[in-house]
């Protein structure tokens, strides 16, 4: 510890090089930070309280195959189930499907159950009542409202494709959600009334609200067991698993993240190793002097490793800060509506990023540091480089 000022002074000696290295590591680390955050949100994060209470039941075959609405009665009898809501992916075309932002997710739901189910969403009471009262009403998320500048009373025309017909919805409410809210909900009754008789009574998914997160796998298994021998078998999973499964439609996201992260980490390793090698090479004579003064091999090794650590940790910290900004951008992008909730600031991820940067710094400087600490005094002093 008492060598800390010396380490800091050493790393600050060639300012330009140190700054360039920190910048280089920082830029790479910010990519890594985004990827770690996404990876953890998809596969590691525990769902938040409310989300952990929600399960999704769909047809085992695929989302394109519907379930009979009659399943609801049986699902609601499963112990632990508090509420079920019909939630159907509506699809359809808003204005022009070729423009990406027009393809926001749209669902037909049961209005009276939407807000009890998503208890973390907030909406003014009068807007909620208006949505319940009017059959052609819809509610939109704050993000969606901002994108298209929707106001209360605006009409949104959607041309149905899975459910043929021209529909016009009136915005009666704008809700706020802690995660991306680039989404629109409307009353399934409005859609049903325009469908031919034989297509009614079919639903895409049941959202199931349970009483205790600990019961989630038991409830899911008992729901699937109910329909194991029927023509339409079900698959029930947590809302989080359902969203991540949806994402896999984009391709092998997991592999994509892992490979790019590996490339980025290796790049940081090279950059840091290069810097430390250069800085050690410049100071071979100094190391000789330090040794003459009685510094041990271990101390010298520690000094150089400490310098690498200081630089890479600084880079890691800066990189993490940039990554939070990038992550906010990812969350607000049109794709954000399909992603699970990302935590923009997460102390665990911050710690992982900085530790990872530090570790890379240590590993990268190991070879030059060992070389310098082992160099014989006389040779080190003679060096002119």
């Amino acid at each position: 510890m008492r060598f800390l000022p010396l380490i800091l002074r050493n790393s600050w000696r060639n300012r330009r090089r140190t700054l360039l290295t920190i910048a280089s590591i920082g830029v790479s680390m910010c990519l890594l930070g985004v990827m770690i955050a996404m990876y953890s949100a998809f596969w590691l994060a525990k769902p938040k309280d409310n989300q952990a209470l929600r399960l999704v039941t769909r047809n085992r075959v695929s989302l394109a195959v519907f379930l009979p609405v009659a399943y609801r009665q049986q699902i609601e009898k499963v112990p632990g189930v508090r509420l079920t809501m019909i939630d159907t992916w509506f699809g359809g075309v808003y204005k022009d499907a070729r423009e990406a932002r027009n393809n926001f997710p749209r669902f037909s739901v049961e209005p009276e159950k939407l807000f009890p189910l998503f208890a973390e969403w907030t909406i003014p009471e009068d807007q909620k009542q208006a949505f319940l009262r009017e059959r052609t009403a819809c509610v939109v998320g704050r993000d969606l409202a901002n994108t298209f500048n929707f106001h209360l009373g605006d009409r949104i025309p959607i041309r149905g494709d899975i459910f043929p017909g021209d529909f016009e919805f009136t915005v009666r409410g704008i809700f706020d959600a802690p995660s991306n809210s680039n989404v629109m909900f409307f009353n399934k009754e409005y859609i049903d009334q325009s469908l031919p008789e034989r297509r009614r009574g079919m639903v895409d998914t049941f959202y199931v609200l349970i009483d205790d997160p600990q019961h989630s796998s038991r409830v899911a298994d008992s729901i699937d067991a109910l329909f194991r021998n029927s023509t339409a078998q079900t698959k029930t999973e947590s809302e989080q698993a359902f969203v991540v499964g949806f994402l896999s439609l984009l391709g092998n996201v997991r592999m994509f993240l892992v490979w790019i992260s590996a490339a980025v980490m290796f790049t940081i390793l090279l950059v840091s190793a290069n810097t430390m090698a250069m800085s050690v090479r410049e100071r071979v004579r100094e190391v000789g002097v330090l040794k003459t003064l009685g510094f041990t091999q271990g101390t010298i090794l520690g000094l150089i490793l400490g310098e690498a650590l200081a630089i890479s940790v600084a880079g890691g910290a800066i990189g993490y800060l940039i990554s939070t900004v990038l992550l906010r951008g990812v969350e607000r992008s049109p794709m954000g509506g399909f992603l699970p909730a990302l935590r923009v600031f997460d102390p665990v991820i911050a710690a992982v990023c900085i530790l990872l940067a530090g570790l890379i710094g240590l590993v990268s400087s190991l070879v030059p540091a060992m070389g310098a600490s082992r160099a014989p005094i006389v040779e080190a002093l003679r060096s002119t480089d």
Partner: protein
Amino acid sequence: MAIPLTYNLRNLVVRRTTTLMTALGIALTVAVLLAVLALVNGLRVTLATSGDPRHVLVMRKGATSELTSLVTRTQFQDLKFKPGIATGSDGQPLASLELITIISLEAEGSGTGDNVTIRGLMPAGIAMRHNVKLIAGRWFGQGVNEAVVGKALSDNYPAARIGKKLRMGRSDWEIVGVMDAGRGAQESEIWGDTNQVAADWNRVLYMSSALVEATDASAAKALVNSINDDTRLDAGAELEQDYFARQTQSATPIEYTGIFVAIIMAVGSSFAAMNTMYAAVARRAREIGTLRVLGFSKLSILTSFWVESVLLAGLGGVIGCLLVLPLNGVTTEVGANFSQLAFGFHVTPGSMAAGIVFAVALGSVGGLFPAAAAAKKEILTALREI
């Protein structure tokens, strides 16, 4: 007068560890860029080989994908006898009414389900796909729950191998054959008899789309216009090739993400290159002074160091290309229109050239400041530096 190039080359060789590490850093950046370009290219090749210029795809007006389109049997009966449609060997028009839907299949070792396209089609539909060939087993029979799977599917999904039974809409289907579509999108599909698929999914009246073959490419264009203008038919038509070309859009998010990542990595590597070049300038201060004494101008010093940086980055670019080459032909999958599409990475000479240009650009930006610093050195102070 310019400083000879060998001076730079030798310098790079003398400081080979530093050179190699910096070049490798640049190489990784280029490799990420190239891998993404290869992915997008592979997808384009697959989609381009999937369409036939004589084929016209008929969907509901305004539908953007077969999955969300609806075509009725009545519409198909009217459509079948439009002029310009070729006749098959049996004397019937080459037209196939098809039903497209998806099922969830578990990939090898993943544990999660992927969405796979199921296509119900008529015998004419098979005859029309000239690029599709049966490589194992036999075609499915009419009126039975039998299916033929694409090669990519049977390679990746143990549940979709010949002889296995697959649970589809409401009943089990036996897999009786494997087809090869020569890189086409059909390699990621499961085919069965259209009427059986319709019955299994309880969609007897509303099918998804119809595919017809025109006598030649110009007749196909005329057919598209005549179907779109037919108000009684009330359906939309487009060339199958145009339809597939539109599907390449599904790769856009991947393409943009990849390019974005590569650019950020490039910023990082250009800082690293700058570092290396500054160190080179600092170490060779006396050399620079000597060169100036020998009569080389500031400009030639600037050019020389800048060229060295470009050479360094170019080396990185070449290594990056070499790193990506083994990816060529590796197959992967991407979601297109809510179902999986298998295709191979396709590294083209064009994208490799782009990668090297990218590296050189990165090196020239990174080398500019150090080169300027080298050129600005005063002769006397430079000579005095150790």
